[in-house]
């Protein structure tokens, strides 16, 4: 992109002048990926808030969600359900993928993290990396190493208003992401289990002294995080149309960056971090260079770690009260 001999800004300037339409176009694209990042980032932040563990296998749960979407939609299509009612078939695909993915998350915690609950903090982290590698290879062996195509069953309608286009699928992804985030927020703030999750995150011993079953709350956390990742995986599979056993890696690290950007452990932080990261990526791709799209996330990660390691909404480090 950079042409030799010309200063950087002379390339930048004409791009900046194409402001209106392109800007809003990138905002829409950014919100679409940002919503997905936010859903996955929530899984990282919820688990970190309660266990102080970076669950590096979380990206793989997202990848499994994408595969489950293809599998279940395939089953429902073969059974003739999709022809009968596309909506019903899609709704059932979402429900089944979310349930099965939650079961994966639940099992991973019970097998790989729970036995290490009282071990030094590095051990569960290494266990998480192990689970990540295992799940990638497990999917590669059972589903094959080549790309899988998401069934073309959903008609794509393009909504256009003054040079800005948006597909119905983009609109769907943005709405579902925002609804799930609002739902999670209400769950955490208003329900008894949600309040108990916050209590456990703040003081596990005190929570047990009040009769809260810590193991149960941890399981609920993994189930919710994995369910959100499943929805994200399914929506991305619909959006890009292709799925591969390794897609969890990059998206996982980007969502982790989003969680750090917002302040790891903070639920609203993960939501804002995800959306901001999506917007930065998309605006960067539009105005600077789309070849460096993946690099923006990590440039941001480095800047955050240098300038404000606690993230946008993170709590400052220090002794716990």
């Amino acid at each position: 992109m950079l042409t030799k001999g010309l200063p950087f800004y002379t390339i930048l300037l004409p791009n900046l002048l194409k402001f209106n339409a392109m800007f809003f176009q990138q905002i829409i694209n950014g919100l679409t990926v940002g919503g997905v990042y936010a859903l996955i980032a929530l899984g990282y932040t919820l688990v970190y808030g309660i266990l102080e563990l970076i669950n590096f296998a979380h990206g793989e749960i997202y990848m499994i969600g994408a595969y489950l979407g293809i599998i279940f939609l395939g089953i429902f299509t073969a059974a003739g359900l999709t022809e009968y009612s596309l909506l019903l078939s899609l709704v059932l695909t979402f429900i089944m993928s979310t349930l099965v993915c939650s079961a994966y998350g639940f099992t991973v915690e019970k097998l790989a993290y729970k036995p290490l609950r009282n071990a030094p903090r590095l051990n569960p982290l290494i266990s998480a990396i192990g689970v990540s590698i295992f799940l990638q290879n497990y999917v590669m062996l059972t589903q094959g190493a080549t790309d899988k195509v998401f069934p073309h069953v959903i008609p794509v309608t393009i909504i256009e208003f003054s040079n800005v286009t948006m597909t119905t699928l983009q609109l769907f992804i943005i709405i579902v992401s925002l609804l799930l985030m609002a739902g999670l927020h209400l769950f955490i703030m208003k329900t008894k289990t949600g309040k108990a999750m916050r209590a456990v995150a703040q003081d596990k011993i005190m929570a047990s002294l009040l009769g809260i079953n810590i193991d149960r709350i941890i399981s609920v956390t993994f189930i919710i995080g994995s369910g959100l990742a499943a929805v994200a995986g399914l929506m991305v599979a619909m959006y890009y149309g292709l799925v591969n056993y390794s897609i969890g890696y990059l998206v996982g690290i980007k969502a982790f960056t989003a969680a750090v950007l917002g302040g790891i452990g903070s639920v609203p932080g993960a939501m804002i971090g995800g959306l901001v990261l999506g917007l930065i990526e998309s605006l960067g791709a539009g105005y600077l260079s789309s070849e460096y799209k993946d690099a923006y996330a990590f440039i941001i990660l480095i800047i955050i770690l240098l300038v404000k390691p606690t993230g946008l909404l993170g709590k400052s480090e220090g002794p716990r009260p």
Partner: protein
Amino acid sequence: MLKLESVHTFYGHIEAIRGITLGVGPGEIVCLIGSNGAGKSTTLMTISRILTPSKGRVLFEGKEIQNLPPHKIVSMGISQVPEGRRIFPKLTVKENLEMGAYLGSRGQGVRDQGQGDGNQESENLLEYVFNLFPVLKERQKQLGGTLSGGEQQMLAIGRALMSKPKLLLLDEPSLGLAPIIVSKIFKTIRELNAEGLTILLVEQNARAALKLAHRGYVFESGQIAKEGKGRDLLDDPDIKKAYLGE
């Protein structure tokens, strides 16, 4: 009501209590006194099963409880206010109290308030705690971390009462509080006991604790050095010298 039979517990690599045998009868206030590190808090944490005893038995109403998980202990009617109060700083005062009623109320220690459905009962308990500590009602929407030390102690006790315990374990309720607050807390403890709540109290403030308690145990490096009626221990010359500064 509660019985410990030669209980040993490790805290880290140190055997913090070595063969503790003690009992608490229904309706009693029993206090544990002794210097720092004598094993008083470890004893309470062992009863609540945050720490696991390596040897010995813990019996509550005749049932062995040393192998039950902590949340089962609470559901049997044992509630603890731990040292340092451990308020959830980012939960509101009301939410802190609601967490106290997480299991729904099981015991009968605190006077029976209403027999309605669960929600109704929890509302009644909330009213009961607000009557006990009116300042909590004023502050119910504030975050727990913004309360003063005395208010936090009241919140911690109120929260523990929300499960309607039969036995309340209190660890250092007077620690770091102004004398006027301390006397208010001790007065509340006496009132709760008068309503039928059994109390096991750990205190550094030995004089006040022994005056309040029916019986006391003196801890010394993980073992019980002396036990007796509160009044008798107050008059004991060794104890006067070691713990009462006379």
